[in-house]
């Protein structure tokens, strides 16, 4: 892969060295580095990377599995921040798209934004920010996670992300020379000029970090912050810190995201149900009648021949509008179906509380 091109920018053709996402099913998406000598193994069979190379992204790759000779396939997708969120290796809890998309919108993220994010964690949100904003300053104090994220951001070609190894709650956000950081210093600058206009804090004690933001946020613009905390007690302490530090328009919200799958339910009319019951009754009566005839015959005529003494069989089901007793596939064209939605079996009922606040440090007039 051309190292100057991020695997996250639009690309058309699957190439050797690419980061690609193999879609096995909705909850099973696997990142791979395309390598002509490798196979991608699933329990349904092996897919050679060679068969992917040169094809457009989004291509379905199909095989016949040897043993059982079944038709099996995968799709090779180009990474996007949202698909990455569904497939990334978890190092921490992560922020999912219903939350991150709303936060980005509320903080009005766009190419003119400079964003601060702490902590980096698994980099789920970092990728969504990096796609959209001008520059992202991300901070992580856990050294292993820092190293992993450093490598990941480099491999993913995210030149607009600066990662710094830092405990932001005790040491703030300023980036100086000789700090462990991916920041590229200009020749004579002693420290980085950050001027962030949006801040996202996903760490256990945001109230310790809030007072340290003043040194790194833009002075003469409206700056937005979002603190992401699972407990309401954290929200309370966060609001206290925000108020003390002059943040206004404080608002806390919660996001509820749901996925629906489309299903079908068989249309089973009352008329059909009645008709079926009638049919059953008719058959029963016929059976009784026949049995009676048989017994009568046996009792009346002892010299009955062999054929006559055989037990009568009830007639086979004639009317089976709902396919009772057979395996009916949902959507079978021989039946009538109503389209319905079904919510996913387990929903994320609580991710975190989102506390937003805004601040303009310097309200002086420019001419």
């Amino acid at each position, binding site marked *: 892969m051309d190292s100057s091109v991020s695997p996250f920018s*639009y690309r*058309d053709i699957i190439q050797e060295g690419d980061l690609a996402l193999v879609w096995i*099913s909705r909850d*099973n998406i696997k990142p791979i580095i395309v390598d002509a000598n490798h196979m991608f193994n699933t329990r*349904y069979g092996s897919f050679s990377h060679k068969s992917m190379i040169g*094809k*457009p992204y*989004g*291509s*379905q*790759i*199909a095989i*016949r599995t040897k043993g*059982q*000779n*079944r*038709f099996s396939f995968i*799709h090779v*997708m180009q990474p*996007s921040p*949202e698909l990455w969120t569904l497939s990334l290796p978890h190092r921490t809890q992560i922020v999912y*798209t*219903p939350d991150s*998309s*709303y936060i*980005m*919108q509320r903080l*009005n993220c*766009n*190419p003119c*934004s400079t964003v601060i994010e702490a902590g980096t964690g698994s980099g789920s949100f970092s990728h969504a920010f990096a*796609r959209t904003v001008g520059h992202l300053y991300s901070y992580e104090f856990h050294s292993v996670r820092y190293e992993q994220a450093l490598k990941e951001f480099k491999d993913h070609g995210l030149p607009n992300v600066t990662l710094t190894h830092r405990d932001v709650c005790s040491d703030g956000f300023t980036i100086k020379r000789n700090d462990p950081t991916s920041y590229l210093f200009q020749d004579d600058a002693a420290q980085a000029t950050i001027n962030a206009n949006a801040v996202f804090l996903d760490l256990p004690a945001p109230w310790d970090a809030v007072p340290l933001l003043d040194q790194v946020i*833009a002075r*003469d*613009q*409206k700056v937005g912050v979002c603190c992401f905390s699972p407990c*309401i007690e954290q929200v309370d302490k966060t*609001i206290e810190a925000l*108020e003390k530090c002059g943040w*206004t328009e*404080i*608002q*806390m*919200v*919660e*996001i*509820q*995201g*749901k*996925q*629906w*799958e489309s299903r079908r339910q068989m249309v089973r009319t009352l008329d059909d149900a009645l008709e079926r019951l009638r049919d059953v009754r008719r058959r029963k009566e016929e059976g009784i009648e026949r049995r009676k005839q048989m017994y009568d015959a046996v009792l009346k005529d002892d010299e009955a021949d062999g054929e006559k003494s055989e037990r009568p069989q009830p007639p086979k089901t004639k009317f089976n509008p709902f396919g009772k007793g057979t395996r009916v*596939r*949902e959507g079978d064209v021989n039946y009538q179906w109503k*389209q319905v939605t079904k919510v996913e079996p387990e929903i994320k009922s609580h991710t975190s*509380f989102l*506390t937003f606040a805004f601040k*303009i440090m*310097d*309200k002086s007039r420019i001419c």
Partner: protein
Amino acid sequence: MDYLHHITADQHVILKLPSGNWKIVELKPHTSVSLGKFGAFQVDDIIGYPLGTQFEIYYENQSQPNDDDPKNKNRTPVGKVRIMDEDVGGSTEGSELSNVNSSANNMNLINIGNEIQAMTSEQIEELKRQSISGEEIVAKMIESHSAFHKKTLQSQEKYLNRKKRKFAKYFTVEYLSASFLLQWLLEKGDTQKVLDMSEETVAMLLNVANIRSEGQYLCMDETGGLLVYFMLERMFGGDNNSSHTGKIVVLHENEHANLDLLKYSNYSEKFINDHVKTVSLLDFFEPPNESEIDSYFKPIPKEEARQLKAGKKNAYQRRLKWYYNQHEIVQLSTKSQYDALIIASTLQLSTLVPLLAEKVHGSRPVVCYSQFKEILLELTHTLYTDLRFLAPSISETRVRPYQSVRGKLHPLMTMRGGGGYLMWAHRVIPAPEPPAHETEDEGNGPEEKKQKTQ
């Protein structure tokens, strides 16, 4: 790019009023803006301050002009503005109440009608006439309110907020973001005009559609341009000088596209022309033929064109424009592959989407908005049987707002219902069925052949 962060002349901004209502204004220099009962201010007085600044309107020394001109009788007098340092009307801080006693519970809570409020409405009106700020009026009212200290802290706060809202003459000047534009429309009662779309749903749309500044997007927008504005803001951040190359191709079912709401944006006409292209559905599906276009018209060398006489020159320019436009339509409808398909339309999606998705590149998202889940249900059933779509699913996102006051955090009692739904799928490229090793056997793969029991 001052206009992105500072209040600038000739800019559209949105004003937040004490009542919680919004007002969009264009800041024409040397004019005044009236906010009705909240006063009026001079545009020139607010230019240059950061966007997001809250101003208070005040009147110096009886400055209510006793104008005899009957025309001016109902006009709001224009006051002066000063910056407010404390945010009012948002969350409440307990600090302003610290010098007043309050009863810890509401045991003594009694109906505080006018008997207890010692000031008469005439007195209050008088105060209002005197240059006094809303804050000061409220402070005076508290002083004279004999039972104020009997109220609980909470009801004191509520009382204060109510009074502040009533007498305050302040406003906040905000950047007119797509979210604010949406909020303004909803408040105005234009819910149907924007297909009941909520901020959280369109936010989700922008992310799952992977909208970025270099993308080429195929879009249908029945919200009067609101969706396109959301996309433009995400792609370019309001920057008219943006060097990003992204483009939105808007398909429309009428003779002209309705992108009316873009008139409130601060993008220049040139910018919009460069980044938003509109094509009718008919032109898109039945594009003109290139050789036919060329047979009608051929541009002449620039030198010759320059020497045309005035009348002829105009006619020539018109035809030249037509010529380029026709070729552009051919380009956009037959030669372009798009980075996402984004639809907010009430046309039948189950017939529209399979056709438009032909123009979407593999692995790129297809995202449809609908106010109704059932519409997307029909669509997903159609897409399930079409191997060009991977895992169509319906999503719903809702924001639940809280009362955001320390110690009293709880979800608000009511919130807006509705907000719409999204269908999200990816465009994929089906493989031909591989040859069988031995016997034919339809089996299950990782993702079994489409249209299993799903």
